[in-house]
């Protein structure tokens, strides 16, 4: 991470707009495409002001068709452009899923790198904002499972900007998941101008020796709250924000659990087949003999995300995580 002298206090959504401005300014081949991204500035205002600044040839309102949007952006990406596609909510990406699975992620292999798809798909995701039905999905595991796709999830304004710039500059398709709950949850220091955070690298949010907590997106804050509560009870947590779900930061994961010997994985996605299971596989392969207790998972349930009256019951919270920490430490 480069050190920038000038900082601004921004929300995550403002930091994302900043990142888009930076790349639109530095690279003529960058395009922003999506539904309502133009005059309206995006349903979450992530593209606010870009239409006015860069015009309708670069910030493009498209027909309401996710497959069409992703599919035509694949063509643009194969032919010299770097499209940044906004899908309004993760729950609405599925009509475009085929274009991601059978094309965007295979074109490099199929053409032995004659063609590539430098496309970033930005998608708000996750629960906790009292949104309508289908607006709260966390199906990141579906995407982390696809060969040829990188999956990135920031949890802070600072990381959102640096990771988004890296994603757009990456030569391959990147799914950039933006936790809706964190969009306007407080402001953070964000460097001005150009700076990047490498993909595939996690970040230690808090250091502790007793147990590792692994989380991403909105669950990082939950992990930090749980770590605070655990500290009050004399248990020190190593809180790791994974930031990239593919590829995962194997070194940081191994280093953390080899120090603590215990782990709790927190994700709001359903438990079965989630990215947490892959984390356990990595810990098993790298650190089996270091472990003092079985790895715990605190996750959403294997049930469709409920409507918002039950949303808090569905989601992991600090108390659920604290319970798992205590069980692991006392094992």
């Amino acid at each position, binding site marked *: 991470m480069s050190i920038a002298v000038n900082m601004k206090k921004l929300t995550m959504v403002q930091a994302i707009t900043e990142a888009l401005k930076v790349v639109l300014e530095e690279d003529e081949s960058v395009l922003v495409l999506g539904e309502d991204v133009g005059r309206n500035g995006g349903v979450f205002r992530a593209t606010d002001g870009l239409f006015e600044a860069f015009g309708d*040839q670069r910030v493009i309102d*498209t*027909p309401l*068709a996710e*497959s*069409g949007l*992703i*599919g*035509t*952006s*694949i*063509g*643009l*990406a*194969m*032919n*010299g*452009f770097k499209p940044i596609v906004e899908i309004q909510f993760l729950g609405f990406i599925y*009509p475009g899923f*085929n*274009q991601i699975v*059978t*094309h965007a992620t295979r074109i*490099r*292999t*199929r*053409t*032995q*790198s*004659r*063609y*590539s798809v430098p496309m970033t798909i930005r998608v708000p995701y996750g629960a906790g904002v009292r949104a309508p039905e289908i607006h709260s999905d966390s199906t990141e595991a579906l995407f982390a499972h696809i*060969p*040829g796709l*990188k999956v990135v999830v920031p949890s802070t304004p600072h990381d959102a900007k640096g990771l988004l710039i890296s994603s757009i500059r*990456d*030569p*391959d398709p990147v799914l950039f998941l933006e936790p809706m709950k964190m969009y306007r949850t407080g402001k953070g220091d964000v460097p001005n101008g150009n700076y990047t955070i490498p993909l*595939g690298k996690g970040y230690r949010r808090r250091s502790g020796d007793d147990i590792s907590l692994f989380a991403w997106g909105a669950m990082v804050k939950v992990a930090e709250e749980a770590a605070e509560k655990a500290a009050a009870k004399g248990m020190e947590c190593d809180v790791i924000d994974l930031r990239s779900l*593919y*590829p995962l930061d*194997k070194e940081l994961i191994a280093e953390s659990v080899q120090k603590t010997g215990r782990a709790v994985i927190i994700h709001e996605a359903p438990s079965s087949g989630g990215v947490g299971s892959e984390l356990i*596989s*990595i810990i*098993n*392969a790298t650190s089996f003999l270091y472990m003092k207790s079985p790895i715990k998972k605190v996750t959403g349930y294997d049930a469709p995300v409920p409507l918002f009256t039950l949303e808090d019951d569905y989601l992991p919270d600090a108390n659920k995580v604290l319970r798992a920490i205590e069980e692991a430490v006392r094992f």
Partner: protein
Amino acid sequence: MDLTEQFPLIQLVNGEGKQLEENPFITIANAKRFYEQMLFSRMFDRKAVNLQRQGRIGTYAPFEGQEGAQIGSALALEDGDWMFPTYRDHAATAAFGHSLVNIFLYWKGCIEGCVPPEGKHIFPPSVPIASQILHATGTAWAEKKKGSDRVSLVYFGDGATSEGDFHEGLNFASVFQIPVVFFNQNNGYAISVPIERQMHSKTIAQKSLAYDMPGVRVDGNDVFAVYSETLKAVQRARKGEGPTLIEAVTWRYGAHTTTDEPSKYRDQKESEQRRQSEDPINRVEKYLRAENSWDDHWEEELKKKAEDRLQKAVTEMEKTKKSDEELMFDHVFGTDVWPVQEQKKRFFHKESER
């Protein structure tokens, strides 16, 4: 609503080889050029089917009967244009300059067969249905944004018109006036399902009305008409006048792929009748004979030349027993990504999986 009058079948030379109207493209030179390409394509197709029967390549999707539609359209493109084929369009890709060895290699199970010759924009055959329509639209959109006069042409079948991506592609192209030619080969069947189960409308061409773009219905077995209409569409696109939908009505004589038996879902007598009455290759022969320009010796020479070319390609293809194992790992990403690198290492060192 019957729109067949609004979208009449355009024919320049009928099944008897009779020229029906004046057209600058109906010349002896063009007839010979088209004949040579179509004859070669048919020999390629039969060679591929034979290779599959002998176990020398894998499952193959034959196109015999559709040579007129593919050759007529492919020859309307120029270098720098983009071609998006399906898995049944090797007559088109070969005519546009794809490597025969690579086409054979693809069907032999080697992904490197998808790589087009340097400078040729030929996309790998799309295996899912209709999804390539969007890529053609996107690459042509990029050409428009760059201010070039290059265009994309995309092939798809009658079944593809039922897919959402067909409609999304036409709509995007219409909204943004993208220089793309949507070239439909209506061969009447999507594997076994007849066109009546794909749509209630009488023509595919009329679907252009919904997207406010020109639509034409052409006899796909009349290579002159296909060439003429495709060229018009390509030129319109080059001039910035937007997309066109072309429906080329044709027929596949044989199976969907070498794994199915067409007599199970249709009377193959119809295929035989069509072969007699409207075959795209015989039609050009009849035309040349009527013009006193047919020469048996010339045809023999073409066949010999084609057979040599095919034999060379097959010999070259057979030098590759299988793809190099590295190919499985080396082009997943443009940068090193550790799970792929780690798995590659384990594969080559024969270590157990994690």
